[in-house]
């Protein structure tokens, strides 16, 4: 991606920026799919239903904490233990959000709060790297919300769809280990 590309796509309107985010996330999506399938299959083994799996991966949307939660899952689950582990595993988000904060100053809160719901390792890394490149290139605003959303939504859809697929296929595959 050259500076000229970035400037032209910035002028190219909102859908071009969204698409730039989706395509730059594509290589990462390939790497995510196997993990999503394994998580879904493990969750099914632990007795989570095909509805509960997308509920967890769609509302929580943080893979590391979901793997940890599934390892600890019992029926009924130890709620406090699982919630505490979830916080510990995801506490890195605090630092990630802090690193992103200077680039979000120009945006209204009503856009930032929903956008942060979709902040995962991948969308954060892509969005921040893109913002730094655009800043160096003198493009304003440095942070492209649409580019970030393109990458983040691609991750979100992939994660929810393939964890659900894993939960559906898991019982057919037998014992799954990461």
């Amino acid at each position: 991606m050259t500076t000229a590309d970035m400037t032209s796509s910035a002028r190219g309107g909102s859908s071009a920026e969204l698409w730039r985010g989706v395509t730059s996330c594509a290589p990462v999506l390939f790497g995510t799919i196997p993990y999503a399938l394994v998580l879904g299959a493990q969750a099914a083994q632990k007795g989570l239903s095909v509805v509960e799996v997308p509920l967890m991966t769609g509302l929580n949307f943080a893979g590391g904490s979901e793997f940890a939660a599934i390892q600890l899952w019992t029926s009924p689950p130890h709620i406090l233990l699982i919630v505490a582990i979830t916080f510990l595993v995801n506490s890195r988000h605090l630092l990630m959000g802090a690193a992103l904060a200077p680039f979000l100053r120009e945006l209204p809160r009503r856009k930032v709060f929903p956008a942060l719901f979709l902040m995962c390792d991948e969308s954060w890394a892509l969005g921040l790297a893109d913002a730094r490149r655009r800043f160096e290139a003198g493009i304003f605003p440095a942070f492209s919300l649409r580019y970030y959303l393109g990458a983040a939504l691609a991750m979100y859809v992939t994660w929810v769809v393939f964890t659900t697929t894993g939960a559906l296929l898991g019982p057919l595959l037998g014992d799954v280990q990461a």
Partner: protein
Amino acid sequence: MIDPMALLTIVLMAGVTYLTRIGGYVVLRNRVLSPRATAVMEAAPGCVLISVIAPSFVSRHPGDLLALAVTILAATRLPMLPTVLVGIAATGLLRHILPL
């Protein structure tokens, strides 16, 4: 289909996760950082990414370690998509050839 205790656990997980996502932004939104704090924030992304991926490097499986070496080599020469494909293929192949 949905167990009430499972639902409660999932909703609470989602709640604390969202708090971690907005926490850094809420605290730093209207702050002007000192040069020292700015330097820390600029170094943070690399540290976070390494801590996310490093646990996967700890493996007793020789196939995994060889695949890691192949992937690092690929990452220094190729763009991201071919690197990911090389990594996945190398891991699958080497795990198959070299049983633990």
